[in-house]
């Protein structure tokens, strides 16, 4: 068998066959593959955790065996504690309410599992935003061992839940099923409002459609609208159409009935903003804007669903949470409309409104949205952080 692993071109054919022969006898599997055991306990915005990682795997990633004698001693582990902590923590992303929680190692110990000795790292975490769920992104030993699994035990309100991370599913959402239904609903309502207020593309789309509502088109000229009632009806039509449309697709996507690729959705949303704002400068559709609001609203619904996906829906109260999120989006949107309409109506006869806000604003929106369109369609960063939604 000495030559089974020999190298060299001349021996290649022979080795190829020897290897195959070796494999003809079905493999007798045996030890365990690489696992790490992660426990996370959540109490509000603070986290407490323990992470058991096999010394063999850490050696594989970091080279713990300093004197290369094939033995890993406590001294060798102890001198690399900081590296172990930094390595592990950098491969675990925990987010609450869309913002990343900071994790800090607190102690290093040793434990044994069925396949050997493990480094045990305890840690605490602090989440800047509360959230109904915890989004976890687990990448330990990514690239080093695609067979590695992270076995998470998530504990909240005395209930625990097991989740397995693998190279194929590094992203999981936990929590949120243990609080009461009312609290659940309120949390998702809050998330919906938050999402529309921080989702500039949705706001700019809505504004583009609302800006002309206090005006009217007369002989190819924009004139002040005749009455508050007329403007109100116009706004109501646009908002209702937009709401109806995005509620439909948000539900369809959240329940995984219809799934569209996010790049397509996000590019489509950017395009909708470009078209809606350009329509104010070069009018094509004057009175049927509610139709555009409905058509593009379908796309925006898929966008909301993407945000909801990142947040995660608790399996136990899916419908309630979905309804809460949707109503939150509507409430947030209504608040914008209620602020916009009286103000715009009062200013509608001024030169400043028609020239600066309406025309200038529309051009500015079109420019911003064009950049988004390019960024999202071609996956490039034009104004990177600025465009972050």
């Amino acid at each position: 068998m000495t030559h089974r692993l020999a190298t060299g071109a001349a021996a290649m054919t022979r080795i190829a066959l020897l290897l195959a022969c070796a494999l003809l006898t079905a493999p007798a599997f045996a030890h365990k593959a690489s696992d790490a055991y992660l426990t996370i306990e959540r109490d509000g915005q603070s986290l407490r955790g323990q992470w058991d990682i096999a010394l063999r795997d850490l050696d594989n990633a970091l080279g713990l065996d300093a004197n290369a004698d094939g033995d890993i001693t406590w001294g060798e582990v102890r001198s690399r504690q900081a590296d172990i902590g930094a390595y592990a923590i950098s491969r675990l992303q925990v987010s609450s309410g869309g913002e990343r929680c900071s994790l800090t190692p607190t102690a290093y110990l040793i434990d044994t599992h069925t396949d050997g000795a493990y480094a045990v790292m305890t840690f605490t975490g602090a989440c800047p935003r509360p959230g109904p769920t915890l989004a976890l992104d687990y990448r330990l030993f990514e690239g080093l061992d695609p067979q590695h699994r992270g076995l998470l035990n998530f504990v909240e309100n005395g209930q625990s839940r097991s989740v397995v991370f693998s190279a194929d599913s590094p992203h999981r959402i936990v929590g949120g099923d243990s609080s009461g239904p009312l609290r659940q609903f309120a949390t998702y309502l809050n998330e919906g409002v938050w999402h529309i207020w921080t989702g500039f593309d949705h706001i700019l789309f809505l504004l583009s459609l609302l800006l002309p509502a206090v005006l009217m088109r007369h002989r190819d000229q924009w004139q002040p609208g005749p009455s508050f009632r007329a403007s109100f009806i116009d706004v109501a039509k646009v908002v209702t159409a937009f709401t109806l449309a995005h509620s439909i697709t948000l539900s369809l996507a959240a329940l995984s009935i219809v799934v569209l690729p996010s790049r397509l959705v996000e590019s489509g949303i950017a395009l909708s903003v470009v078209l809606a704002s350009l329509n104010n400068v070069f009018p094509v559709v004057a009175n049927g804007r509610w139709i555009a609001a409905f058509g593009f609203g379908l796309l925006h619904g898929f966008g909301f669903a993407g945000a909801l996906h990142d947040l995660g829906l608790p399996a136990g109260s899916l419908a309630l949470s979905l309804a809460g999120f949707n109503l939150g989006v509507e409430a947030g949107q209504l608040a914008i409309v209620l602020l916009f309409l009286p103000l715009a109506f009062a200013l509608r006869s001024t030169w400043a409104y028609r020239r600066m806000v309406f025309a200038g604003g529309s051009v500015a929106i079109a420019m911003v949205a064009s950049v988004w369109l390019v960024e999202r369609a071609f996956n490039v960063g034009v104004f990177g952080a600025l465009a972050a939604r």
Partner: protein
Amino acid sequence: MGITTPDWRYAVFAVAFALLSAAACAKPFVPPSDAVVLERLPEKNDPALAELKRMRARLTTNPRDLDAAVAVARRALEAARALGDPRYLGQAQAALAPWWTREDVPSVALLLRATLEQSQHDFAGSLVDLDRLLAANPTMSQARLTRATVLTVVGRYADARLDCAELTGKVAPVVVIGCEAAPASLSGHAALAYGALVQALGRPGAGAGVREWALTLAAEIAARRGDAAAGERHFREALTLDPRDAYLKGAYADFLLDCDRPREVLPLLHDDTRNDTLLLRLALAEQRLPDRRETFAAHRDDLAARFEAARRRGDSLHRREEARFRLAIENDARAALTLARDNWAVQREPADLRILVEAARATGNADALKIATDWVAAHHLEDALIVAQLERPR
């Protein structure tokens, strides 16, 4: 080339490890001194594994070097097989990562991917890759040999034999005959296959690796045909060629257990307790030996913990072994039957059928027994123990 060299220091370590394992339920601890050895790396006494580690380190500086990646994957696969340690499968897959999901995988990487898939019991995925490989390179002998193996494991004997026939003249005769003997002996031609294999083994020329493989195969066919004397002879000779081969040791341990010679299993496997499949055989032997009650209890608990650990990670590679464990050691026939049936849906070697029959008999499950009876009838399976079990009145 030694993969592991057990020595007295390892024995000391093993004892320490066992003590630590026994205390596994205890809380995490801070070791009393810096000098405490926590883990002995597998490459400690194994130049081949040490070299693999160096090769992997070199590969990280240029992960897109296909030749280097293939060399690492080959050696890691070989280590996975020799030690039965799936961590090396992960290393092999990682080395091939740049080509793993690509549509235009280079042939050499595709072959290794198929081999890895086979190792992980993804036989369907493995066959897809092998079909593709052979469509493009019909003369690639290794791919054909691997496909014959996979086809045999899933019970497609006629297809497997076609692949073996294609190898004639392209590889050493004993390889062709061995390739052919595996599926032929499972589909009504055991005597012919065995005769041809013994004859081929009588001719000189095969390397030690090929010879050991062919001897193991001959031993298994002889045992299935009920010729214990011949089985014993072939197993012994194979063991002189490679006394550490984990597959061979497991097969010989099963043979000894079937011959009701449990005491001989102890010296064969006492250094292999870190290997789950071998530990199971050791425990099965100890179970029958009243003076081994204490070690049996410890090994039983250890196995239970390992199956639990595998279950937690969603592993299904151990189903055959776990079914045996549940049935023979824990007397949980119903759990054993569920595992055996799930296992039979994936792989169909005689050992898979054997545990299915045993679990079906223990639970009196007519449905599962019929699956087994039909299989034996359809393929004319010659396996003395399975046939006897099926014929024995319930």
